[in-house]
């Protein structure tokens, strides 16, 4: 497997619009197209998405209690099929999720040193 770049990082927050405005004001980052319907900003070749975790989701469980913070790293890989094969070969647990119109591999945080890491092929859109 070859991870090519960070596609985006996720800031989990109950107030995505407000949090995006905070980051835009503090860091003067331009907006990007939404990521899975949530506001996002551009920083270099990556983006920062501001997302409210859905109740019962792994992201909500990981964050807990409505806290805000950096919750996920999404990397673009050369080939999702190769990534899936590499994870299976290494015995890394993962689930297959939808990320907008994209298919994503969500690596179990227990295998990624507590990091919620998703792998996608191509940039994640709305």
């Amino acid at each position, binding site marked *: 497997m070859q991870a090519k770049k960070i596609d985006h990082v996720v800031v989990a927050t109950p107030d995505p619009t407000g949090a995006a405005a905070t980051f835009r004001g503090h860091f003067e980052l331009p907006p990007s197209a939404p990521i899975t319907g949530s506001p996002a900003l551009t*920083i*270099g*070749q990556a983006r920062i998405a501001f997302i409210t975790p859905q109740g019962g989701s792994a992201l909500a469980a990981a964050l807990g209690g409505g806290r805000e913070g950096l919750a996920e790293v999404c990397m673009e890989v050369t080939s999702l099929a190769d990534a899936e094969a590499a994870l299976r070969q290494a015995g890394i647990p993962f689930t297959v999720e939808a990320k907008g119109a994209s298919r994503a591999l969500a690596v179990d945080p227990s295998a990624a040193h507590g990091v919620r890491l998703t792998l996608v092929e191509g940039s994640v859109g709305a």
Partner: protein
Amino acid sequence: MLSKIHHVGVVVRDLEQAYGFWRDVLGLPVMVVKTVVDQDVTAALLKVGESEIELLQPLSDTSGIGKFLAKRGEGIHHLCFETDDVDAELAAAKSKGIRVIDEKPRLGLAGMICFLHPAATRGVLVEYAQPLDEEHH
């Protein structure tokens, strides 16, 4: 001006064990490994595109990273933005009333660095880094 995500900091218990996933499974090359004595941490930067993953292994339970590990376990620690002028960025942050942790830049693994307080940035611990010339990669 902030130009890119320099790195995402990740606290791990054991660097060598962590390489088994980040380097060997994801294919991220290790660019540099250093011990930062005043922070009681050994850190490795692994390249992913224009950015890096910074793996941080505490060397004591009493260091900042050691306390983080004891309280929250392994996981994402901070987000670092690269700048070509960390003094100017820190001054700009202060002028906007953004609460900071470091009153002036200091030497870190990623170059001259400073941290903003997460209370000012939606719970995200944000670092600014100005790489030293020989460390640009």
